[in-house]
């Protein structure tokens, strides 16, 4: 089933584009790929630079994400769960919103420079530089790193640490020998996903950097726009090969570093306000406060600017007119126009649909790939392909493969509308479920399942009753990601919603973009509000499931 969905909404459509790289005028050729690989410009200036900025972005995302994971998994404070749920928000932000928020926050006259000047520091010129791109990539991906690491940290068994301590290990030693081995795979998965994502980054690069910092995806877009398919496909093939190669390399590492967790009794959390102010406790709190400031600048700043823009009138005063526009468009919009309510309803429907399809797909794939067999990492890497292939290429492939339809025995078979959208979203989302679940599953003691099986449980039963509750944190995190991917997806949605009413919130945001940013940002805020609420609900629900299963 999983394989069939993958074939119909991913491998076949993508193949219709990739084939252009190896077939020109019906004849097989290696010319397009060779010409890319033998071009110094493409290799050094484009692929080399793309990898370089992706590497910087990955480092920045990990540095920014890890303290977040530490705080979320080791401290207890009011609103911790809500905050954890909301960490996923940047993930659904349409790139135009991020660009607007970043200009308002980090620009010449932005909030950051306002604050710096107020406290007597010199202003910084951040916009239209590599730094701006890297920070924006960290905005998107640090939460990802934080999320997967938090899930792993919360699954660390406290008794293992207690055992180590009782055997004389110092807290540092216990951390290094017990906790760290269980966190590293999660950090590595976060880093790998970040690299693959930022390697294919497109709108952010041109909006916050400029064409002098063009990446591979910029050129793929340009070639497809000009219908130069052979070159576009060749670039996309090389890009995918690099991303998949990296994923493969990571997966082999993941396979080697299986720890041996014993189940989950989470460690006790510290209070954010310590009982006694030892030097160590004070140091930790200062770190947290400093981190809070960074979070304020990088995450809260851009989002707050967007909210402010949606409330600002042409004269600069506060106004609700942009929200009234949404209401008015809802009431009087013509059938050929995009209206807010259907967009919200569709986004939620597709989000839930994606979650329901992607979670089982992802879990099955995780179980499959945590078994030992030859070529496991290769299969696993191929299954991860959906996020390694350029979104622009997937969009074109879906147009050719699904929207236009395929001749099957004389009838044109088309797949569009809601089902196609959900399927496409699920394909993009299930790798997240897999990557959140697989490392935790790998840490489980195989004897648990063996005992269950020897007591007569079926494999499915053992999975549902024994393994899943133990990796609930990963499943819930994966489900939240699946939902988020669906809400934020643009490239495929816009293609598949063609000629139907299946448009979503990000599509509406794009559509409302005009000379005044008000209507688009108002729709963007609606998107954020709706998704925030959804995440809190998903995780409350998921959290209960986790607690019931835990022991």
């Amino acid at each position: 089933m999983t394989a069939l969905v993958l074939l119909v909404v991913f491998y076949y459509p993508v193949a219709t584009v990739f084939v252009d790289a190896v077939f020109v005028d019906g004849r097989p050729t290696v010319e397009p790929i060779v010409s890319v690989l033998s071009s110094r410009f493409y290799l050094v200036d484009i692929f080399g630079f793309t990898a370089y900025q992706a590497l910087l972005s990955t480092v920045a995302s990990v540095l920014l994400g890890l303290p977040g994971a530490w705080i979320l998994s080791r401290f207890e404070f009011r609103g911790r769960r809500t905050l954890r749920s909301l960490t996923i928000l940047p993930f659904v932000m349409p790139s135009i919103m991020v660009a607007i928020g970043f200009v308002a926050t980090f620009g010449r006259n932005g909030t950051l420079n306002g604050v710096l000047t107020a406290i007597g520091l010199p202003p910084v010129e951040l916009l239209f530089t590599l730094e701006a791109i890297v920070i924006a990539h960290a905005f998107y991906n640090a939460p990802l790193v934080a999320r997967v690491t938090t899930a792993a940290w919360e699954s660390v068994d406290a008794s293992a640490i207690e055992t180590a301590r009782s055997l004389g290990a110092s807290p540092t030693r216990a951390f290094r020998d017990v906790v760290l081995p269980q966190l590293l795979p999660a950090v590595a998965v976060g880093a790998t996903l970040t690299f693959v994502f930022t390697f294919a980054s497109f709108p952010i690069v041109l909006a916050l950097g400029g064409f002098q910092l063009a990446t591979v995806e910029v050129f793929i877009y340009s070639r497809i726009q000009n219908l130069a398919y052979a070159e576009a496909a060749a670039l996309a093939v090389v890009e995918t090969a690099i991303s998949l190669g990296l994923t493969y390399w990571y997966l082999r590492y993941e396979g080697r570093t299986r720890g041996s967790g014993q189940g989950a009794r989470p460690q006790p959390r510290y209070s954010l306000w310590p009982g006694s102010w030892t030097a160590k406790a004070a140091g930790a709190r200062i770190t947290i406060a400093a981190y809070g400031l960074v979070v304020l600048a990088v995450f809260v700043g851009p989002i707050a600017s967007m909210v402010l823009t949606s409330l600002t009138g042409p004269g600069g005063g506060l106004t609700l007119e942009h929200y009234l526009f949404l209401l008015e468009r809802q009431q009087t919009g013509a059938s050929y126009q995009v209206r807010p309510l259907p967009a919200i309803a569709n986004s939620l429907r597709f989000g839930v649909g994606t979650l329901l399809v992607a979670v089982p797909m992802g879990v099955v794939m995780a179980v499959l790939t945590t078994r030992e067999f030859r070529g496991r990492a290769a299969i696993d890497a191929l299954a991860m392909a959906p996020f390694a292939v350029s979104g622009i290429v997937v969009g074109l492939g879906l147009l050719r493969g699904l929207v236009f339809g395929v001749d099957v025995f004389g009838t044109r078979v088309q797949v569009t509308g809601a089902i196609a959208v959900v399927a496409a979203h699920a394909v993009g989302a299930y790798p997240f479920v897999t990557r959140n679940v697989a490392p935790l599953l790998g840490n489980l003691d195989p004897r648990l399942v063996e005992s269950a099986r020897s007591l007569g449980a079926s494999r499915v039963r053992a999975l549902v009753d024994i393994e899943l509750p133990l990796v609930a944190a990963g499943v819930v995190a994966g489900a939240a990601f699946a939902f988020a991917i669906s809400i934020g997806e643009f490239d495929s949605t816009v293609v598949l919603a063609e000629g139907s009413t299946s448009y979503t919130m990000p599509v509406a945001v794009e559509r409302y973009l005009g000379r005044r940013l008000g209507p688009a940002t108002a729709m963007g805020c609606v998107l954020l509000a709706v998704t925030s609420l959804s995440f809190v609900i998903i995780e409350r629900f998921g959290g209960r499931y986790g607690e019931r299963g835990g022991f």
Partner: protein
Amino acid sequence: MKRRTFLRTVGAGGAAGIAGCLGGGGDGGSTDGPTASGTDETAAGTTTGTAEPSTPELVVSTYGAFVDAPSTSPGPWLKETFESEFDATIEFATPDSEINYYIERALQGAEIDADVYVGLNVDMLIRIDERLDDGLFVPVDDVSGQGDVKEGLNFDPEGRIVPYDTSYVSLVYNEAFDGGGFAAPETFDGLLESEYEGDLLAQNPTGSSTGKSFLLHTIAEKGADGYLDYWEELQANDVRVLADWSTSYTAYENEEAPMVVSYSTDQVYASQSGEDLAKHQIRFLNDQGYAYPEGMSVFEGTDEPELARQFLEFVLRPDVQGEIAQRNVAFPATTTAELPEEFAEYAKAPPEAVTFTYDELRDNVSEWTQAWERQFASK
């Protein structure tokens, strides 16, 4: 008498029209404009259209901002007025990839379900002719009003495309920048002066009509063998080439830089929304503006050729031309358009309009653009 009635109506309704117009960001119908899909009944309407003989249906395909800008756009007015005068309904289709969507359909052998396309430019036409042996459109003749189209706006040598409006790409600058007293240079060479370092925001020529027009304008000025050197100096003077019109205009409004490549109709919107016009000054470099006409045509496979022809004639009618120009914030394509006097006050036309012909572009435009891309993106 009739004319006076019309002008009065415009006086009342025109203000709202102008105020709202710039949906796609006043970019007069380019790929800058955010477009998205979302027409309700396109597919259904087309397939069932023939089964309902009572009211013939015309499927008009266009870019999103033409029908669905956040304020007003020409689409709804056009549909309503046309339907009130003719026994027909208009269905809009707004594919996200615009004309490429239909080129793709033709390449893949899928049926084309639209009758008319509105929003064609010369780049699109070149793509059509390069990729498709048969083309998508048929030559349009005996459309009354076609003779009124201004000299120099016709961009299709084979007469398939009828221009319906035009914009001029120019610089927009902020006199009040950094305390005031800023003035944009008057020539292309002036942009290279050190006092303008980091002062200009432009757009990616691929996927943005302003960016493409500006690049072509530099080629028209500096020649095919000189523009790359010019751009090298421009880049050394820290010009910023951003994603599209919208991103660069946002940055301009946030005062990241005092100059942006945009349209010469910029003040129409600014004046209507009560903005400070000092921040919306127009500069025609070398006293020229690059003309960016938009055209419409009839799909070869249409089953409503007569209705389609009537639609084209309707769009060229003097009153409709005036209305579209105001609602799309662009200049009309015909010499006979009826426009209120205040239109000329804020919509600035360049002393001299510059543009390349279809033939010049067809042979060179990909090469020019790609050479520019490679140079500009070299690290």
